[in-house]
């Protein structure tokens, strides 16, 4: 091989490598990114059975039930619709009734959302940003009284 051919083949190999990586990235983004919904959005969303999503809203007051063992059931609401969620595990420290929460998982055949992770990350007003934005967009946001 001449020097030029060598260089071209090295560049071609590099580009092929990058091409594979790019393809993999876009495939993974299509498959693995999970969308965020509020309960009222679900009516218009077309979800595949078993598709992973993030469901966010407020933990409806008075709906948190602890059954035997470590399974917890509660409702997530956006003050328009609510969705029943079950979760097995330890709820985050910041989880509490009436506060914002994001759950990740998929719907079971009975229409109950089975979460495998529950996030209650927050800013000072105990509201995940996604949930706050969603509530604002729905016009049901109430400026929380901080301190």
């Amino acid at each position: 091989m001449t020097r030029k051919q060598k260089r071209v083949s090295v560049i071609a190999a590099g580009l092929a490598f990058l091409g594979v990586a790019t393809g993999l990235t876009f495939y993974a983004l299509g498959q693995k990114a999970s969308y965020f919904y509020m309960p009222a959005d679900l009516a218009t969303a077309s979800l595949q059975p078993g598709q992973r999503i993030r469901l966010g809203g407020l933990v409806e007051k008075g709906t948190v039930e602890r059954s035997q063992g470590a399974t917890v059931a509660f409702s997530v609401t956006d003050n328009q619709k609510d969705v029943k969620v079950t979760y097995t595990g330890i709820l985050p420290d910041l989880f509490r009734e009436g506060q914002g929460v994001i759950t990740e998982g998929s719907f079971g055949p009975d229409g109950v959302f089975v979460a495998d992770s529950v996030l209650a990350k927050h800013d000072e007003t105990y509201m995940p940003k996604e949930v706050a934005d969603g509530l604002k967009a729905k016009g049901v946001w109430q400026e929380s009284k901080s301190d």
Partner: protein
Amino acid sequence: MVETGHFALVLAFALALVQTMVPLFGARTGNHKMMAVGAPAALTGFALTALSFVALATAYAGSDFSVESVWENSHSLQPLIYKITGTWGNHEGSMLLWVLILTFFGALVAVFGGNLPATLRANVLAVQGAIGATFFLFILTTSNPFVRLNPAPIEGRDLNPILQDLGLAIHPPLLYLGYVGFSICFSFSVAALIEGRIDASWARWVRPWTLVAWMFLTGGIAMGSYWAYYELGWGGFWFWDPVENASFMPWLAGTALLHSAIVMEKRSALKIWTLLLAILTFSLSLLGTFLVRSGVLTSVHAFATDPTRGVFILCILTLFIGGSLALFALRASRLTAGGLFHPISREGALVLNNLFLTTATATVLVGTLYPLVVEALSADKISVGAPFFNLTFGPLMVPLLVVVPFGPLLAWKRGDIFAVAQRLMAAFAAALLAVLVTALFIDGASVLAALGVGLAFWLICGALTDLAVKSGFGTVAPATMLRRFAGLPRSVFGTALAHLGLGLTTLGIVGTLCFGTEKILSMQAGETVELSGHKLRFEGLYPVQGPNYSEDRGRFALLGADGSVTGEITSAKRSYPVRQMTTTESGIRTIGFSQLYLSLGDEGSDGSVVVRLWWKPLVTLIWGGGLVMMAGAAMSLLDRRLRVGAPSRRKAAAAVPSASPQ
């Protein structure tokens, strides 16, 4: 004192402007007096910033609640250590720490840069000053930590309980030393572009600075990972959280830079690429600062959200990344490319390393920014988490790890792949043995898990092989071998240690992910639970009063095979009344390299408590490997080649006597 700190910060800003303009102008016009302004300006700037930082820390230590930032993030009942570390446990203070470290590195260039050509030093300090000036302005206009409150409140609002931990004393300073340390490489690259040539001293300087920054960044990330592991009570060591990615991207790019800088230093090839990589690495640090500090992302690191801050940092980002890349586009063609090499050679291996690492950086970047882009374009909110990164980052890392042991054994310029493969036979056999032992003797080991263990052993044995081959193992007499071993350059040990650390981290990750077990159950006092051969008895919940919190401490007795108590693990639900926050204090017991990890959940109405228990085999190796990598970097820094400063300083001074400002 507070006003002194504020005033010192304003002065430091003004001085940073001087440090930017005067030496830059001096370098253009060849005015040595103007160029000489850079070093004293950098030193004084550092002193002023340090004064400002000490003033703020004093206000924190003394609980001066007339300062808004102290009021918001401190409490008189906090232990002193958390009062002090609280200085940077908030947006304003952490930005001050950021510029403190930036000016610290500028001062280091001023002190150790005596052997640099005068114009290069002037330009480097000017760029460093420019970065400083923008961040000083940012702090003074949008995040001033010295704002007073009148009337002064009697009591503070407490530091975020999650941050009330020793981790806060170590993680941010280490991380910033790493993040901001790359600013030196950036300044050197931009200075080289301004001058339009890459001088030999540029090549000599970039590698040690990259090593320093990389060492601290490695430590900062490892420490942050361990902190999240024990503090959050989720038992995970890495969440692919955007904020973690923000620190991981500069690390990946910095690792690539570290390797390409070797090629540049030894063979003076890849100059332009190294320069670009240095710019990109610090750009990713800036991007990380933007992601963390602007509040576009929700995370434990986003202390408060304020749109003006986000816009300001975005402007800084555009200015420096855009500016430096534009300069690169204009000037890169003037720079001369270096020596040629065969694809199968040390250089070739390092190029391959760079190809993998930069591609991996790009995938992490895409995964981190994609949700922001999607939200901006379509108002859909999506999240990109572990499944994405496992599918993209994983496949990129595995082949890289497979080729790592080959790199250091290949010769420069033209290597013999078959000879190297022959030398690695022992390491390969050890890896194969590890695969077989794992697959045959460990219950529930999948093929993938066995291969993962094999990969880790391949890396570890490969690193040892490198040392053995270079000290002539098997070819010379043992005494000669020992002498050669002791006489190996420190950087050879550095490489071997860093690669060894990588192997250990890999082993820890594989062990934890593939062989870890967990149980979630509801327990009454007196009940026992067994997990992977470890037996625990729940002794009950006991209330404990801390200085600024109260907790329910769950005590668990670790039982031996005969039922006797061999140890105790405690885990607690801690509640902080000021912020009305609860945190989980996980209980951890280290057994060998493995850990038993326990986390308390909610208390049921019947007095039972939800307990989550993990057995994490070899988990400590994940961070232990990070420490070994740091040791490798430190060892490389001690290399004689990097300390040739003394003779070359005399040479430089002799060559350009009038150019020596000090």
